[in-house]
């Protein structure tokens, strides 16, 4: 048991220990303030700075991504417009080609038709002329053989042939008229 006298037994009254404690704590405070707290603060601010920087980088990356996406979208829209424009152009061109082809075909058709009818006219004329020259001879020959008399008489012959031709002509005119009306139809 340590020795204690009555005057010092009141534990609420300080003694000289007070000064030692004051000095001891002041020393602790000094050491902490000078050697311990500054590195902590430094590390704290550095880490906060690092985090802030990371956030900034994140923001920048996000902005970049957004910009790229916007660019991509605008390009996509542009490409769609381009495609639509090309399609429209193609359709117009197609329609034009069809029209041209149709016109060309019609022209060709009418040309062919005209040529054909001209050729037919020419052939008919030719046949008619041939007939004219041959039918008379043939007919008088045949008729001479049948009637037994010579139709060599130039005047009679001519008369007969002419009459025949006239008849034939009248007939062929009727035929021709009906033929043209049919063609026109």
């Amino acid at each position, binding site marked *: 048991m340590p020795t204690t006298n009555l005057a010092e037994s009141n534990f609420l009254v300080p*003694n*000289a220990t007070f*000064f030692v404690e004051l000095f001891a704590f002041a020393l602790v405070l000094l050491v902490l303030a000078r050697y311990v707290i500054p590195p*902590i603060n430094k590390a704290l601010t550095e*880490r906060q700075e690092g985090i802030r920087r990371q956030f900034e980088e994140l923001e920048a990356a996000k902005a970049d991504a957004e910009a790229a996406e916007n660019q991509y979208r605008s390009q996509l829209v542009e490409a769609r417009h381009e495609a639509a424009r090309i399609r429209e152009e193609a359709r117009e061109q197609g329609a034009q080609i069809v029209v041209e082809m149709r016109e060309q075909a019609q022209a060709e058709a009418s040309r062919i038709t005209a040529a054909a009818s001209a050729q037919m006219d020419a052939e008919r004329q030719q046949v008619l002329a041939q007939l004219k020259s041959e039918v008379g001879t043939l007919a008088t020959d045949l008729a001479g053989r049948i009637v037994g008399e010579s139709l060599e008489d130039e005047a009679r012959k001519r008369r007969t042939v002419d009459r025949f031709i006239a008849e034939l002509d009248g007939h062929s005119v009727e035929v021709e008229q009906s033929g043209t009306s049919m063609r026109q139809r």
Partner: protein
Amino acid sequence: MIGDSLLAEAEIEIGEHKTFTFLNMTFNADTIWSTVIAGLVVIGLGFWMRSKVSSTNPSKIQLMWEALVDWVTVQVESNLGRVHPFVVPLAIALFVFILVANWFELIPSQHLLPSPTADVNLTYALALLVIVGVHIFSVRERGLKGYVKHYFQPHPAMFPLNLIEELVKPITLALRLFGNIFAGGIMLAIIGLLPIWALWFPNVIWKLFDMFIGLIQAFIFALLTIVYFGMASAGHSAAGDEHERAADPQPELSEAH
């Protein structure tokens, strides 16, 4: 004293210290050496952290220090409106030192290592340091005229109350800490009187609770220190309240950021 015979019977020592005399002054040897050990522990923790401090890969001890520094800095900012280069280290040192000293109570050292905070010498010393700092800070903040004037606000008739309040601050600060830790020690001593088979359960419960008390008391001491400094810069009179309100947006802004 009435309790003396009772205590002697129970073999409980209350407020008794191993003392020595030097230059005709009495010193409490046990308080001094446990203070030295507590101080070494605090400084050791600090230098341990310092030796492996890293801004990218902090160790656990560093994270503990950082949490403390961060909390104190935020408190100082919101009470003083700015980070004061003296108040922050003071509050940190107070918290760590008191916490370590309080937890000495839990070590079953047979009075070889008593908690130094269970001795008024330490708590008075801490309170004196704080309150002297507060008054110096107050004079610097408000000027000598403003400092004297604040004792007479809001009305000159309030002077005695203001004076008593200022005087009571360090005493309550010191005695609150002392009383809590001292009582914790007494509780342990009383529990120690129980028979050995019944001892362990209340002992464990009380030590856990005492640990909590030690933490809370260290916390309160540090927080009240900051609050007193905050009051010294703005005052707690009507005018001071307006000052406080005017200064309020600043910490809020910094916190929002």
